[in-house]
């Protein structure tokens, strides 16, 4: 593997009594789109600040491009940040905001003009140079902030919840644009968000955080399909999480029935949690159903119906279906063995990966 662009080695940080980062180990490869995903207070912004230099770490080492940068001040680090509140300078117009970093380096006027023009072009703001910041909309401010950061040609761009202040439609557009921009520039993006949809849509790799710990890292598909624990399963997407017992390899028991599954490597009769995504559950007739449920309510979400149902044992189920089902009707629910994902209690990411190795030989 090539040398990682950023490496955090056993990094810890606390403010007073509260520990915000607990022994974080993290490696980021050059040229990829990474996302730190977690609820507010999970420590994701602190990780970003240890890389940008606005937070010093209590213990551990921060490496950038192979160099230890613990003591390097922010203005000498080769990373740039897009701030959550944009942090544009109101006393300058768009052009001067974008040119700010270059003017500090005494770059020649013509060169500045050329690079500002091209930076504004890459965020689709050609011709906005003379605008005042106060005349811009939220989305335009966001683009200026991005242009101001990428003009510095950093090896890595840090984005601190940059889309959280935009409305839903604009946010979706910006997701495409950010992804496209990252691929065009070929630099590493570290994106911070609490929005799991954003993370799934844009990232090459996601780090899910909670309480100062990275719980799981992997591609969006891995994390969505094989969440490591209850928190990740619940935080990423909608899910049905049930208590069950692993009877033997490839057989799990929940809601009083045994089902074939694709998980193995656990102790016989080990208590586990079972995750089933609502879109993997298919509604069928009562006779064909592996489960029988009664429909409680349903909400039309545009591209699907979100159906809440209860089975005969009182367990609640969330089902996504393209077809509407009458309320209070009894229907069958069916699913395939690979729709069942089994989670062990308190399993670390290393153990999880190691266990997968033991039986997923074909992959």
């Amino acid at each position, binding site marked *: 593997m090539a040398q990682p662009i950023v490496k955090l080695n056993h990094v810890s940080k606390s403010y007073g009594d509260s520990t915000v980062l607990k022994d974080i180990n993290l490696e980021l490869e050059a040229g990829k789109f990474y996302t730190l995903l977690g609820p507010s207070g999970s420590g994701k912004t602190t990780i970003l600040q240890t890389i940008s230099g606005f937070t010093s770490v209590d213990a551990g080492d921060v490496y950038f491009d192979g160099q230890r940068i613990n003591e390097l001040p922010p*203005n000498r680090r080769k990373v740039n*940040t897009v701030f959550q509140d944009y942090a544009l300078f109101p006393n300058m117009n768009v052009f001067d905001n974008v040119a700010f*970093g270059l003017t500090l380096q005494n770059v020649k006027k013509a060169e500045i003009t050329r690079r500002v023009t091209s930076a504004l072009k890459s965020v689709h703001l050609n011709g906005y140079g003379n605008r005042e910041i106060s005349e811009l909309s939220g989305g335009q401010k966001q683009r200026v902030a991005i242009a*101001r950061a990428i003009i510095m040609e950093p090896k890595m761009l840090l984005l601190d919840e940059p889309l959280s202040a935009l409305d839903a439609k604009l946010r979706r557009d910006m997701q495409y644009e950010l992804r496209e921009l990252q691929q065009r520039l070929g630099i590493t993006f570290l994106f911070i968000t609490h929005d799991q949809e954003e993370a799934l849509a844009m990232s090459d790799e996601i780090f899910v955080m909670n309480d100062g710990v990275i719980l799981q890292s992997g591609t969006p598909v891995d994390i969505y399909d094989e969440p490591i624990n209850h928190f990740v399963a619940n935080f990423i997407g909608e899910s049905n999480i049930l208590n069950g017992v692993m009877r033997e390899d490839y057989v799990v028991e929940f809601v009083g029935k045994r089902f074939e599954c694709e998980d193995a490597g656990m102790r016989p009769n080990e208590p586990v949690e079972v995750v089933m995504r609502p879109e993997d559950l298919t509604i069928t007739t009562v006779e064909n159903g592996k489960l029988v449920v009664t429909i409680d309510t349903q909400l039309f979400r545009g591209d699907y119906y979100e159906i809440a149902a209860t089975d005969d044992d009182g367990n609640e189920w969330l089902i996504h279906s393209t077809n509407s089902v009458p309320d209070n009707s009894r229907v069958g629910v069916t699913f395939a063995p690979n729709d069942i994902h089994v989670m062990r209690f308190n399993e670390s990411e290393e153990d999880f990966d190691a266990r997968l190795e033991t039986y997923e030989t074909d992959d």
Partner: protein
Amino acid sequence: MTKRFKFSNLYLLVVFIILYAPILFLIAFSFSEGDSMSHFQGFTLSHYSALLRDSRLIIIVLQTLLIALLSSLFATIIGTLGALGINQTSRTITRNTILSFNNILIVSPDVIIGASFLIFFTALQLPLGFSTVLLSHIAFSIPIVVLMVLPKLRELGTSMVSAAADLGATNWQILSKIVFPFITPGILSGFFMALTYSLDDFAVTFFVTGNGFSTLSVEIYSRARQGISLEINALSGVLFVFSLLLVVGYYFLNQYQQSRKLKRTTREEDIL
């Protein structure tokens, strides 16, 4: 509806008459031929020509202006740096303590401040005069400047400073290119507040001034004790018109800037 509106207008009119009547009364008598303000005795400009010939009074006016400009300049510099320092304090307790000390100086009576400066300067055996007046004016203006600059610094927040550092700015560049331009309105209003406080001040100056140096307020006070001469009325008239012109000038300057900004915005919208 209309009736109540009229009543509020009337109220406003009465208030302004009460506020301005004494000043207008004073100015009116500056054109009176007599020597006292008991009766108006025909129009003359003689008091104004006397004012022009009274070189002592003119020197005092210039001294007052000099003290005001110098003291507010120094106070603005020191106060702005102080506000920057207070803004840097990370602990709320420290910050609030410093701010309280700052505010105490503003609310404490001028007489106390003046007396304590007098005791202080005599203890140091400084000769009373220009320098002591200047020092004390600087001292009582600093808290005002601090109070005017701090809100702007709070408004600035941390993210803009972080952004500048992130783009490679050194501490000095952050200060000169981001912080100062942003807080300039606060600094300016602090300067002008300090200026008016200094021009106004009687109590402190009265204590700390010495032989051969006087400011306008002290001079008028000492003259008024011997029965006010209408020359003072003429001076008041001149100062009143002067401040009126300042206010009007400020108004038009503001209007001009706003219309220019508006024009540019609309012009750019036309282009789109």
